[in-house]
């Protein structure tokens, strides 16, 4: 395989470490790849969302395990994998975001993370099972990003009542 691991970072499952992960991923992407700044911002946000989910998954599983972030490089792409030791999930069977009726719940508005990841990176793969989840996010050299906003727009329209 032409993809080579360039770096592995393992952080405690605590939200205050996500900023360090963002910094590492964006500085590595900046230093090592000919990626436009706005693509690096996309990757930074996607990785951040994946880390938020990974930390939550470890905490829910009562796992003291770290979140492990690895960066992989090939001539034509840059990949980041965010792995946890949580209980796994089915990314194709997420709740369908029903219109929210209880106003209190809005302060904890959720469910935008995975749609955002899908929109921001060129490719995303979920490897999820009982031992944990690995989210693989790929950026190719090009400046385009996908137009998969439909799911998000739907959520927001539901939000608008």
């Amino acid at each position, binding site marked *: 395989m032409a993809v080579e691991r360039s770096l592995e970072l393992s952080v405690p499952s605590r939200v205050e470490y996500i*900023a360090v992960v963002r910094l590492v991923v964006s500085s590595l992407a900046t230093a090592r790849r000919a990626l436009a700044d706005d693509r690096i911002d996309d990757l930074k*946000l996607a990785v951040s*969302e994946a880390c938020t989910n990974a930390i939550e998954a470890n905490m829910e599983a009562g796992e003291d395990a770290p979140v492990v972030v690895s960066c992989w490089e090939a001539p034509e792409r840059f990949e980041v994998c965010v792995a946890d030791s949580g209980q796994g999930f089915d990314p194709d069977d997420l709740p369908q975001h029903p219109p929210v009726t209880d106003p209190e719940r809005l302060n904890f508005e959720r469910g935008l993370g995975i749609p*955002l990841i899908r929109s921001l990176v060129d490719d995303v793969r979920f490897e999820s099972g009982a031992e944990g989840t690995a989210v693989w996010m790929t950026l190719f050299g090009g400046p385009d990003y996908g137009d998969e906003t439909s799911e998000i727009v739907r959520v927001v329209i539901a939000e608008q009542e």
Partner: protein
Amino acid sequence: MELGLQVDDSRSPYTVLSVKGEVDVYSAPRLREKLVELVSEGHRQIVADLEGVDFLDSTGLGVLVGGLKRLRSHEGDLTLVCTQPRILKVFEITGLTTVFKISGSVDEATAS
């Protein structure tokens, strides 16, 4: 790395909340608390100045949506000030540009 939150209530009836730094799952609770506090103190027209925000994640979006709902339920409103492309983009791809009033400056947002 701490979130900067500064309140300016010299532009009545508007209250300007300037947010500085990275808004993510770690820091967003402080933003939520501040919004809740302002609403409970009676502020109704809040302008959140996001020009100093370097990063905004889905938790941050959720907090802003929550603030908007809370204000609207009190006959108030939440306007955002944001011109940075990388922050605007997050609102755009989530469709939230159609939910929030987004201004180009605090002056514009507070021009009655």
